[in-house]
């Protein structure tokens, strides 16, 4: 039964490795270019790509059964929900809710007397 194991050639791993090294160089280089806001976006996108490479090929997620994939996606999703909602609180705390249609008047500015 052990013979059914799917063994990749060495070169398979070396390719992934080279891609990772390249992306590391890229992310470092990009940091030295002024993209303003997009510096962060670029850094994160590259990090996600790198992480996916590791998960898919080094960790053989591609060969895992469906459930494992579901579990991984769920974990990342929950983490995202967690972070997004928490931040959304902090950054909308000062929004004053406007009058709604039920009050019959138009939107008002934040209260100041």
């Amino acid at each position, binding site marked *: 039964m052990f013979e059914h194991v799917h063994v990749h050639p060495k070169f398979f791993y070396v390719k992934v490795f080279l891609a990772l090294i390249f992306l590391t160089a890229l992310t470092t280089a990009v940091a030295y270019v002024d993209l303003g806001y997009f510096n962060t976006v670029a850094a994160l996108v590259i990090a996600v790509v790198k992480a996916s490479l590791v998960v898919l090929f080094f960790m053989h997620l591609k060969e895992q059964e469906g459930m494992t994939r579901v579990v991984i996606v769920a974990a990342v999703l929950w983490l995202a929900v967690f972070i997004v909602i928490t931040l959304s609180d902090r950054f909308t705390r*000062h929004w*004053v*809710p406007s*009058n*709604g249609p*039920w009050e019959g008047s138009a939107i008002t500015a*934040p*209260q*100041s*007397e």
Partner: protein
Amino acid sequence: MALLFFPIHPPQASSIAVEWDYFFYVLTAITVFFSALIFGLVFYFAIKYRRKEKDEVPPQNEGNLPLELAWTIIPAGICVVLFVWSSVLFIKTQRPPANATEVFVVAKQWMWKVQHPEGPREINQLHVPVGEPVKLTMTSEDVIHDFGVPAFRVKKDVVPGIYSTEWFTPTEVGEYHLFCDQYCGTGHSHMVGTIVVMKPDDYEHWLASQMNVQPMAERGQRLFGQLGCNTCHGEGAKTPGPPLQGLYGTEVKLQNGQTVTADDEYLRNAVLGPQGVAGYPTLMPTFQGQVNEEEVLQLIAYIKSLGPPEERKVAKQ
């Protein structure tokens, strides 16, 4: 309800309390209805279909899709209604009317310190006139507290480092409980007080009878001198700080390119430490630890009293 030996509802003493109770009764009705329904059915089935023989097996069934849908959709519908209604109510409680009288509250373990802009200060008491909206601006010197007045159906956490607001319009003259509702340490249950709602005349009378009345803004002005603020913010100061005249309510440009509104909370932060206002060096020293929250409120009152926003805009152009 003197027939009962215990209260079954709190006094209904604010404008929101009426609306609130109405919503509460509806919720209660729904709860009673569904609880009675479920209890009733369960008891009824339990009696009607009780096991009659030791190894009896009833006919089986798989379920019923229309029924499932019905008891998914009906509660969902009720929930939507409740959600909208409660949210509208909530938003009302969060938006003080523009004409509200301001009162300032500082909580600390374990007391409530209240300042009226006109000057009077109280501890664990708050005097307000009946029929006028009151807006509280609250902060804490230590842990999180909560300013709750059951008779008014209002409550809000009082968080250190943040100005939280709460408002109500008292409708009945009387004395009501003020509770600290957020657990804040050993003295939590002693952190109670009284809200005294008075007829407008009585209230004026009370205001006048207070000793040592100095309006908050004046106290702030005195502090402004004592702390040396005017060495930088005064007329012709050597080290230039931004002029504070008419600052309140305007948009402030920061060095990092953002603009923020100079509201109470911004002023609080600005008094306690540099904010990075565009066009000025980050020289303002930090006053954290040198002024307490009440004094900060007084300074803010003073800064606010320095003129309306319009003048500033004109002056800047």
